[in-house]
């Protein structure tokens, strides 16, 4: 449905994207994962015809995005990172406005937005500017869907949103995917990768890797251990000083230790205990997506 080939984009001194290629088949939920400044927003703006690439080519449903921009605009639903609906219009008026721009009606595609809109209905006459953050997000998604787009492009819909609302939002996206809509979504939260069919990891304008979230982390090419013990901060410093340890990063309750080839975990554990970390414990673990991301960032 979407083919991005060798796209680069530069703003003055900043190379926002370098030679990015991504294919998203019809009906896929694709997650673009990376921190602020990685190039996620630029890539999405290029795809929805708001920017022109310096080099490379993009197709949307088989049509060239640059020359056939009218087709793209008719069939894409775009939810930008910042709230961009009409604050002075009511919930209902915003929806009707977006429907009329696409020469349709709210009623015609009501089925698609029904599950989301019922949560908004009590506020139908409220000005959009006076809605809560979560409600604004639901309205923006409804407006992006009202013309029954083939592809939904969502730029960081869950940034700054609490963990409960994030879960609800992903549940909505999976429902839309079941309706057959192709979805591209960006996020800075690595733990959201598991919600996607496929993910792309992006950093400094470069696509580091794409793959299935369940298996992508297998590309992590070193033995990885979880170290636990009292006083995690000192334990971290002690581990960093070791010759047989390549890297140590805090990971929730544990420290993730990337081992050099000559590291013997039993030996490390014994020596740590001798150093006074009496409860120190090392166990091999499977790397996760964030482990891989940090490895690829180096």
């Amino acid at each position, binding site marked *: 449905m979407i083919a991005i080939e060798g796209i680069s984009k530069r703003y003055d*001194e900043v190379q926002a994207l370098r030679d990015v290629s991504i294919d998203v088949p019809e009906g896929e939920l694709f997650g673009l994962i*990376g*921190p*602020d*400044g*990685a190039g996620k927003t630029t890539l999405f703006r290029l795809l929805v015809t708001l920017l022109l690439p310096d080099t490379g080519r993009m197709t949307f449903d088989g049509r060239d995005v640059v020359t056939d921009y009218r087709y793209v605009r008719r069939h894409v639903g775009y939810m930008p990172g910042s709230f961009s609906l009409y604050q002075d219009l009511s919930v209902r008026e915003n929806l009707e406005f977006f429907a009329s721009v696409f020469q349709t009606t709210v009623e015609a595609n009501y089925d698609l937005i029904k599950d989301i809109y019922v949560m908004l209905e009590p506020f139908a006459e409220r000005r959009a500017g006076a809605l*809560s*953050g*979560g*409600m604004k997000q639901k309205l923006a998604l409804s407006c992006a869907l009202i013309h029954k787009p083939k592809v939904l492009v969502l730029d960081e819909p869950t*940034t*700054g*949103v*609490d*963990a*409960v*609302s*994030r*879960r609800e939002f992903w549940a909505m996206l999976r429902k839309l995917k079941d309706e057959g809509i192709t979805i591209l979504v960006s996020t*800075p*939260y*690595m*733990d959201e990768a598991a919600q996607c069919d496929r993910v792309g990891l992006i*950093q400094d304008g470069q696509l580091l890797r794409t793959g299935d979230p369940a298996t992508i982390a297998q590309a992590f090419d070193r033995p990885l251990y979880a170290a636990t013990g009292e006083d*995690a*901060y000192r334990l*971290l410093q002690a581990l960093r000083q070791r010759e047989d340890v390549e890297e140590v*990063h*805090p*990971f*929730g*309750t544990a420290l993730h230790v990337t081992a050099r080839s000559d590291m013997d975990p039993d030996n490390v554990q014994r020596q740590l205990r001798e150093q006074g970390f009496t409860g120190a414990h090392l166990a091999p673990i499977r790397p996760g997506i*964030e482990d891989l*991301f*940090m490895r690829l*960032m180096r």
Partner: protein
Amino acid sequence: MSDAAIHARGLTKRFGDFTAVDHIDLDVRPGEIFGFLGANGAGKTTAIKMFIGLLKPTEGEASVAGFDVYRKSASIRRHIGYMSQRFSLYNDLTVLENIRFYGGVYGLRRKELEQRGDEMIAHLGLEQHKDTRLSELPLGWKQKLAFSVALIHDPRIVFLDEPTGGVDPITRRQFWEMIYAAADRGITVFVTTHYMDEAEYCHRVSIMVDGVMAACATPEELKRQFSAASMDEVFYQLARAGQRTE
């Protein structure tokens, strides 16, 4: 007067008939890293505003660094540092200008300021960028600088409101190592975050739901109490019961 770095009893804020913060009790110990969690709209920001002296409580008592929030807000502001994702430093100023500006605001003398500025720039590895305008630096660097600047006047307590939102995973961890180092020097850290792995790094965590303090304990105790494998699960169990949004 209390020995706690942050102390609250029955602290409440009402806006008309809406109770944003509803009788919260809190004692944050000096040198503690305290995670202040809650869903959007749970009342966290209102509570923080009362602690840093920007908003008068409706009722209840609270003190920060030993100063009463009703009568001593000016003293509180001298003894705390504050940074958030939304407001930290001036994008139009260079790294060095930001440091000088904030040092000046906090009344540091010129000599002290120069020395402190040099140390800070060296410590952050920003020597090559000290004359770079902030708008040209990556977000993660800005946030690390903002944290250092928030500590420029040796505050006893630093309030961090979502300091790591959108920051890359390596810088996010470097940021937490700076937090650990500050706590190690005896500075109390009061931090909010939406990253639940970061909740695990805190000595203690509180979770607000609809203006009420629904839980407050170490991450281990909370996980045991809620039979949860992670703080993410604890948070989900508590916060989904909330009715309010922002």
